[in-house]
């Protein structure tokens, strides 16, 4: 019985509940990001996009199918069903073991990295982050580099030149951009002095969002001076995130015109869907990290946190758990807006040439991030907090 009492059941239960909720939200978001991608790309190109599939509630006895305002909102569900029931074909010429492991590795790494992101303030007294570790960004960078293994293994085990070229490109691209990704956020840690993502958000609640420093209602010289390096770091970080998640203009690994499908050329059905899912989940993880680091996480001015603290006094009349939920919604709303920005950029810019991509990563962003670190260090040294 000693064992039973020593186990922290509360921690296990709440962590499990949070994991299930976050996974549910993320997977739903992934499928609707794909829908948004198709719809926004269509609207940008003066087309309509998928606008037909509604929810077939007439099967359940309702009078008509439910097709809300934009139409096509049932499309992701139809797509998911299609991918699940398609024939799962394994080509004869592949290395079976790695061929099967690769998709799982690809998505597993991304999903794990979501664990450290604070997706809300607190709800019923429990912090809305699955793992409140003191090395949040490092944890995420580590796991996003592990994601390269999925791609490399997929390309290697497929035994096909297109997959192989795609995976080679992808790995070199991800390794190059991880450098500027990691370096570009060091200025933030110089300013904040912590690697705990929850603490980073708390700092932003008190002192204003890093990118928009006047959200707490006052500005001083230090903030204004630091805004420059933070902005540079935001731009380099965001662009590196584009490269890290293989998004256009850096989607060399799956350049359809050159490589058929890139590293997942030989994959079909649910294994392909896992890569697809992993790619979009990585995008969501990246956007969550940007929101957490630069855009104040779950915080919105005037809205109190989950403990009913801060914000506009008049709103304290409403119970705190409601504001906890609002904070979660605010976080995912910010992430969704950033995802829309990612989609918008994708359908605006053409793809980079491979040497341009490498030059950009190694000659520009690496140096800019490095100089930015020294610049920030100088400002922090001259005007201490």
């Amino acid at each position: 019985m000693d064992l039973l009492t020593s186990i922290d059941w509360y921690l296990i239960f709440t962590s499990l509940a949070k994991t299930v909720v976050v996974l549910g939200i993320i997977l739903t978001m992934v499928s609707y990001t794909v829908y948004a991608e198709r719809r926004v790309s269509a609207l940008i190109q003066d087309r309509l996009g998928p606008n037909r599939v509604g929810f077939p509630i007439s099967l359940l006895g309702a009078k008509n199918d439910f097709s809300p305002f934009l139409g096509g909102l049932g499309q992701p569900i139809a797509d998911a069903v299609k991918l699940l029931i398609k024939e799962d074909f394994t080509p004869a010429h592949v290395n079976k073991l790695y061929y099967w492991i690769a998709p799982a590795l690809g998505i597993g790494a991304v999903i794990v990295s979501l664990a450290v992101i604070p997706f809300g303030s607190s709800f019923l007294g429990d912090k809305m982050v699955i793992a409140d570790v003191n090395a949040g960004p490092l944890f995420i960078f580590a796991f996003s580099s592990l994601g390269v293994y999925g791609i490399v293994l997929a390309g290697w085990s497929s035994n096909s030149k297109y997959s192989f070229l795609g995976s080679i490109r992808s790995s070199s691209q991800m390794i190059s951009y991880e450098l500027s990704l990691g370096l570009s956020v060091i200025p933030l840690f110089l300013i904040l002095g912590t690697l705990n993502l929850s603490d980073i958000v708390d700092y932003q609640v008190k002192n204003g969002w890093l990118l928009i420093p006047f959200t707490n209602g006052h500005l001083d010289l230090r903030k204004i001076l630091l805004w420059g390096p933070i902005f540079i770091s935001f731009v380099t970080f965001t662009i590196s995130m584009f490269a890290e998640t293989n998004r256009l203009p850096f989607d060399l690994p799956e350049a359809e015109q050159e490589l058929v499908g890139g590293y997942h050329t030989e994959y079909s059905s649910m294994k392909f869907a896992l890569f697809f899912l992993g790619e979009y989940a990585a995008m969501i993880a990246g956007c969550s990290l940007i929101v957490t680091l630069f855009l104040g996480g779950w915080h919105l001015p005037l809205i109190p946190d989950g403990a009913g603290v801060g914000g506009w006094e008049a709103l304290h009349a409403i119970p705190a758990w409601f504001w906890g939920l609002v904070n979660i919604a605010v976080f995912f709303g910010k992430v969704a807006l950033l995802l829309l920005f990612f989609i918008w950029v994708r359908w605006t810019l053409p793809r980079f040439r491979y040497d341009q991509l490498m030059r950009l990563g190694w000659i520009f962003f690496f140096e800019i991030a490095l100089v930015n670190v020294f610049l920030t260090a100088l400002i922090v040294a001259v005007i201490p907090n």
Partner: protein
Amino acid sequence: MAYTVARPKLTFWEKFYLPQVVGGLAITFRHLVNMLAGRTKVVMQYPEEKWDASLPPYYRGAPALVKDEKGRERCVACQLCEFICPPRAIRILPGELPAESKWSKVEKFPEQFDIDMTRCIYCGMCEEVCPEQAIFLRKDYATTGFSRDQMVHDKARLYELGGTLEGLVFKWNPLK
């Protein structure tokens, strides 16, 4: 011969790239807004909107048989259309009009007249060749069915599609 393509000279801001990116984003955003506001013209939403009203008079849709203004079959089962039909979509079983019939001088009528719409290529040769102006390509373009049998139009269906046609016929239309 070797030919050197002149590279455009880029200004400082163009070399900097980011302002150009913002310009591109502005262009795509304008397209997005125009679409959302309904200012951009988009393609016809087919099953809800149809182009039937703007079909030209010489449109070549599904072939159909017509009756004249007195309700008589125009077809005399001469089988010219059956012979000319390039994909051999038409099958006619000719029958003889009885001697006591009022129209016995016409001699023949089609007992069966089948057009296989899975074979028809809408070329209009049958209409072209028909000496009695009995077969026409009408404006039906959505020919559907759940089986191959349903895609074969029999005589009753062909008359249903064709209806009656009075007076001088389309055949002499200069646009045809």
